[in-house]
């Protein structure tokens, strides 16, 4: 016989275990545990403790379902936000921040896409490269914010010049590109000329008016034309447009590529020319017209190429200036010329006094060690600075900045002579002539070309010589080829001259004899 309390518990327990609601409850919890958060257990009408547990489980399941669903919504929202951010980042990575145009990355992608979509017989895409012609001046004079405003305006004009299917891109700085797809050659050129035309109008920036015209290179692809080649060839055509006076449109032609390769080859070979001993100086006399006496010798650079023979400076100085090789060439010319002065004084001590003329390029004037190099070289070879004359083009002297101004005055302090070269070929301001830091002026040979047959040209040259004289400078006329020219110039009061009439450029060994021999005289 069990005690009463225990018996009651036992009975209660037995009744609970036998209650079918408990099995329902267990099943419901199992379903919930399996992830079926919509599972619910039906309570009975008893509303007793078991129903309370069932109700509690139902409510907890409801809460769990709500939390789960809210979490899913949050994850979905965050995922969507991440996707949006990713799209925005991609957009930013492919867009030019200033103008909103495509950048180089997006342009390259679009070119690739256009090439792919044209592979099945469609028209190959075309690329235009546009480089603004005077943008640096806008930035330098009006500041970068004005420059930015001009770039934005250019971007807008280019957008309006193309079709909706074309892509306008900014490649960086003042360089833009346009991708034209599915168009005929005529349509492509029409778009290129329209872009050029839209850039002819001035751009208003605040109270200033500027122009942002462009040199435009066009490359029309053909089946199989790679994307890089399209860009490269459009770029080559753009440089051709620059070379042809800027503000024009040039269509790429394979010959242009040959020219570029030629320049590239020259650049590579020029790098080894100095060390390889392929450079040489020839010397041309500068003569006092009245006496025929040689008062100077101009050192002229020649490149004796092992395969292509002698190359004149006109074919490589431009490239040397672009590539920075001009520094090395200039240094070599200075060292060789001054060293030669010393050698002449050793081999021919009795030679009459004369100056060595050396051409100095615009870029060289800003060579950091130029002054030191000149001073040390002269000292090393025992050459008086007054026997060195540096010939500098008038364009350099006219547009000189503070850096150049400083170098020029230091050179004068050193005692080195300065001569304005190629006078009459640039755009000299006459009033400026008096303030130029030079002693002599070399009048360009183009001015005396037709002098013998054209009386008006004679008057013109005469006026120029008087002008130079009035500015307190001495004139040397170059390119004198005939006795008549020499006579006319002397009659005009010109003191010095240079040209084939007085002597061709000769190797150093022939100079002493030339110095001793009087020049051709007009009058005996």
């Amino acid at each position: 016989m069990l005690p009463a309390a225990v018996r009651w518990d036992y009975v209660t327990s037995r009744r609970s275990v036998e209650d079918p609601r408990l099995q329902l409850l267990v099943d419901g919890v199992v379903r919930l545990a399996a992830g079926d958060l919509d599972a619910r257990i039906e309570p009975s009408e008893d509303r007793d403790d078991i129903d309370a547990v069932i109700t509690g489980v139902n409510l907890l399941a409801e809460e769990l379902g709500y939390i789960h669903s809210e979490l899913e919504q949050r994850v979905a929202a965050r995922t969507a936000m991440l996707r949006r951010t990713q799209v925005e980042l991609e957009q930013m990575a492919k867009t030019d921040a200033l103008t909103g145009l495509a950048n180089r990355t997006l342009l390259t992608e679009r070119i690739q896409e256009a090439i792919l979509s044209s592979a099945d017989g469609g028209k190959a895409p075309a690329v235009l490269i546009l480089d603004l012609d005077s943008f640096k001046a806008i930035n330098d004079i009006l500041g970068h914010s004005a420059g930015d405003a001009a770039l934005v305006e250019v971007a807008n004009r280019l957008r309006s010049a193309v079709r909706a299917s074309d892509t306008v891109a900014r490649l960086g700085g003042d360089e833009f590109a346009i991708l034209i797809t599915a168009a005929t050659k005529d349509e492509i050129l029409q778009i290129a000329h329209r872009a050029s035309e839209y850039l002819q109008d001035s751009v208003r920036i605040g109270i200033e008016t500027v122009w942002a015209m462009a040199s435009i290179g066009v490359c029309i692809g053909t089946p199989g034309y790679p994307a890089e080649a399209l860009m490269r060839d459009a770029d080559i055509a753009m440089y051709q447009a620059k070379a042809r006076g800027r503000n024009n449109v040039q269509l790429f032609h394979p010959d242009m590529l040959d020219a570029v390769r030629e320049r590239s080859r020259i650049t590579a070979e020029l790098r080894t020319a100095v060390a390889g001993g392929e450079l040489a100086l020839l010397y041309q006399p500068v003569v006092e017209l009245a006496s025929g006496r040689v008062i100077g010798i101009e050192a002229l650079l020649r490149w004796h190429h092992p395969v292509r023979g002698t190359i004149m400076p006109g074919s490589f100085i431009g490239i040397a200036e672009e590539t920075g090789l001009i520094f090395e060439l200039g240094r070599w010319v200075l060292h060789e010329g001054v060293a030669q002065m010393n050698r002449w004084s050793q081999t021919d001590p009795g030679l009459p006094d004369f100056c060595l003329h050396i051409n100095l390029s615009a870029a060289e004037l800003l060579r950091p060690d130029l002054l030191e190099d000149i001073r040390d070289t002269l000292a090393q070879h025992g050459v008086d600075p007054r026997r060195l004359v540096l010939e500098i083009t008038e364009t350099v002297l006219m547009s000189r900045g503070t850096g150049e101004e400083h170098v020029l005055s230091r050179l004068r302090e050193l005692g080195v002579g300065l001569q304005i070269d190629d006078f009459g070929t640039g755009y000299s301001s006459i009033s400026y002539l008096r303030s130029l830091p030079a002693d002599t002026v070399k009048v360009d040979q183009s001015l005396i070309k037709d002098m013998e047959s054209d009386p008006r040209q004679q008057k013109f040259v005469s006026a120029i010589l008087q002008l130079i004289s009035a500015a307190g400078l001495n004139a040397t006329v170059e390119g004198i080829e005939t006795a008549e020219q020499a006579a006319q110039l002397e009659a005009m009061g010109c003191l010095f001259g240079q040209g084939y009439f007085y002597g061709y450029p000769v190797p150093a060994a022939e100079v002493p004899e030339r110095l001793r021999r009087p020049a051709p005289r007009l009058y005996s």
Partner: protein
Amino acid sequence: MVPDTADGGKAGVDLSVDGLLHLRWLPGVDIQVEDARAAMAKVNELCQQEQHPMLVDMAAVASVSREARGVWSIPCGASRIALLGTSPVDRVLANFFLGVHVPPCPTRFFTSRSDALAWLNPGA
């Protein structure tokens, strides 16, 4: 006073002369969000900008949806609420309301009507 039945017909609300609101949920109802809103609208209508203690008779309510419980988190004309139930199920339902949502006024669950009324009218 005759109970004023709220929209949906699942509850009756009245305001006695001594200022006690009485909300009676009918036995066996499943309270959905619209039922809760209707009941609250009726309470606010009776209160006329004044606040009154409220006795909620919820004995024998079958279920209260989550959204319906959320409605009673919004302040209404009740100054304090006594939830009156009888069974363990009522207790669970009431405590889920009290635990999951923050009531806008003092709210307690009672199983004794007299205790509930005493708590609602402490000065009486």
